[in-house]
């Protein structure tokens, strides 16, 4: 209690000089993490960078630390949303492209990380002790997030049984991991139908991964979802974000897919990591935050595939 009031003036001076430093450093870390591992999810890379912010922090109060984390995550989110708007051609070769990657999960991941690590501060009087615990919690959170995809694959493969036909939409890596694990590690025999996924033809790309793993896979038009629904047994999709009333934000077409699946009585599963739970409450489609201002170009799917 008293510690905070004494130190607020010094930390405000600290943070004003340090604001330029941690943001760039966190951003650099983020970009490094993304470059090093193509498989790493954007929010997980951000969480790792935030962990770095705590390690480097010179702050003596919890509020100072929170401020640093907030600056870093704001910078990362700003960069990510800006990158989405820019044309892909303008990207420099060393910064990985974030085209079509949603920033909802990034924002929610950072927010949850900050809430989780700073929740302990009321219990310990000494700040160095506190910081140690904050770092511990941060590492735990990062570990959980990193292992999330594998954990979901482990839990989710139980829903796939032999002889089933699974419908997939979008290029979710979680769903990919889930299905590939079911086929390779648990030796289940099933087939996959993938929706093409215009405009980025994500479905075609992910179909290749499934066939490489040895799962028979068919790619159909997006408009064929009504036609194929009767022959599938279940639908699995990923999520960009999970919103407060229990709904999900996902690639365009997921809502229609959900409506058709419900009408035909097919189970509709969503595989999403816990850091994707966002503080959003959209009342309808128009209420979603604007993700990108990029204009859509109608390209040939075959061209996009290559």
């Amino acid at each position: 209690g008293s510690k905070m009031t004494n130190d607020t003036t010094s930390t405000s001076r600290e943070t004003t000089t340090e604001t330029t430093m941690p943001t760039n450093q966190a951003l650099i870390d983020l970009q490094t993490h993304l470059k090093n591992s193509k498989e790493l999810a954007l929010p997980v890379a951000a969480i790792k960078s935030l962990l770095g912010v705590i390690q480097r922090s010179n702050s003596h109060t919890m509020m100072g630390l929170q401020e640093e984390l907030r600056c870093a995550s704001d910078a990362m989110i700003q960069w990510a949303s800006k990158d989405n708007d820019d044309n892909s051609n303008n990207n420099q070769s060393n910064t990985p492209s974030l085209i079509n990657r949603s920033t909802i999960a990034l924002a929610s991941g950072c927010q949850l990380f900050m809430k989780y690590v700073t929740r302990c501060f009321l219990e310990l009087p000494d700040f160095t002790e506190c910081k140690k615990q904050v770092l511990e919690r941060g590492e735990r959170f990062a570990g959980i997030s990193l292992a999330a995809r594998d954990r979901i694959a482990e839990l989710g493969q139980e829903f796939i049984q032999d002889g089933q036909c699974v419908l997939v939409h979008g290029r979710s890596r979680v769903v990919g991991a889930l299905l590939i694990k079911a086929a390779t590690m648990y030796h289940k025999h099933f087939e996959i139908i993938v929706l093409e996924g215009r405009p980025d033809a994500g479905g075609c790309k992910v179909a290749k991964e499934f066939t490489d793993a040895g799962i028979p896979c068919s790619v159909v038009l997006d408009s064929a979802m009504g036609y194929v629904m009767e022959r599938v047994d279940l639908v699995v999709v990923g999520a960009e974000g999970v919103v407060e009333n229990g709904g999900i934000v996902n690639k365009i077409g997921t809502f229609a897919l959900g409506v058709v699946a419900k009408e035909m009585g097919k189970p509709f599963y969503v595989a999403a990591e816990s850091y994707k739970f966002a503080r959003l409450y959209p009342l309808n489609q128009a209420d979603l935050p604007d993700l990108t201002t990029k204009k859509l170009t109608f390209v040939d799917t075959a061209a996009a595939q290559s």
Partner: protein
Amino acid sequence: TQFRKREKYLNTSKMNTTEAPKTKDQPSPKNIRIPEKKPKLTKAERRALQEKQRAAKGQTKDGKQAAAPKQKQKQKQNQLPQQQQQLSSNKENHKNNGTVNVNDGGKVLGMFSHLPNYKRTELLSGKVSLGPMTNKKKQRFHPAVLQLGYQYANGTVRGANSRCRAMMDVLKKVVMDYELKKKQERVFNVVQLSQELDQEIKLVFQYWTSDCRGHSVSMGNAMTFQKIIVANLSHNRELTSMDEAKKLLCEQMDAYVNERITLAGEAISQHAILKIQDKGEVLLVHGHSEAVINVILQASKLGKVFRVIVVDSRPLMEGQSALHKLREAGIECTYILLNSLSYLMKEVTKVFLGAAALMSNGSVLSRVGTAGIALVSQSYNVPVLVCCETYKISARLQLESITYNELGNPNDVINFGDSGNIKNLTSLNLLYDLTPSDFVTGIITEMGLLPPSSVAVLLREMNPQDTAKYN
């Protein structure tokens, strides 16, 4: 199909019982006398028999005569058992097509006879001028109490927030003007004050509830808070004088009203305006809800440009006061009655509703007509947002609008004049209805915008004293 299955099962079980004696090895003994069936008494005859037995019992127990008048007084204060007595003793119950005569000469549908009946103001005015005699000591109430009671009864003070605020105001006066009954010892005894105040406030609340108008959920929750702070007074070792104790109580009551009602309303506005776009919105409101009007006025102050459709309903026509407030702020308004709702619903972008109470499953108890609006909105895919402070959350769970409701003045709906009761015609004036949680998109409280499933969590966090009752 499930019902048919059950029937089939029942039928088969019946078959088994009839076949059982045949399969028994021993024949049924012939010397057992099967008593003849007693003739079925009608309800009136059974009642007469009961009265006879009770009278016989009363004669043998003379010592317990003192208990009788006390019980009678208890019954007088509590309307419900009295009504039930009326019900059972009414011989013409079935002949009246389900209506029941109640003690002040009005009629009420049998299905709604469990509800607190509308208390005629004419009857009440007689009591008010004399001052009610509450208990054997003939204690009179504070004049502010009587005034508020009358205002409750004739509808001058209406609406959950207004009633609660007025109640807290009057209770503050009662506390400030309170004189200890027993002779005051030299040293100030805070426990005595606490006990006496508790008793006095209880009597005041009982008077309002039983003689003026049934209490709202908001008043009930505020009353629970009141009981707690008065009880906590006796644990407070730092109070040295009665004035200090009274001041403390008043401060606590002010804080409750300020935090749970006034500031909560402002917080609700802050959360709600995030959902209102800057341009092009068409908002729908029903009646007059303090929280909703605050939201709209705040949004207008921030410069958002939108239209408001005010839906009103008879007989209270509360929407007119809402309309005046909105027009004073210069907001473009449309005023309709409930019956033209489906005509205008296609233009509406969002619906804001107020609440009298929130049930723990997210259902909303509100002015009658609200459920209909929510239903129509849902069928047009218009999001329905309910603005409600957390102090109105009730631990009760209600599934429909009949078990808990309130009857208003039947003459407001249709007035037959002096001809009075027309045979086979009753007018029903219900004040509340329940909107199921399925029709509610989101609930805006001072804690933020939450789905209806989160109300139980809010109850636990914000009103822990209410959940304790049910543990």
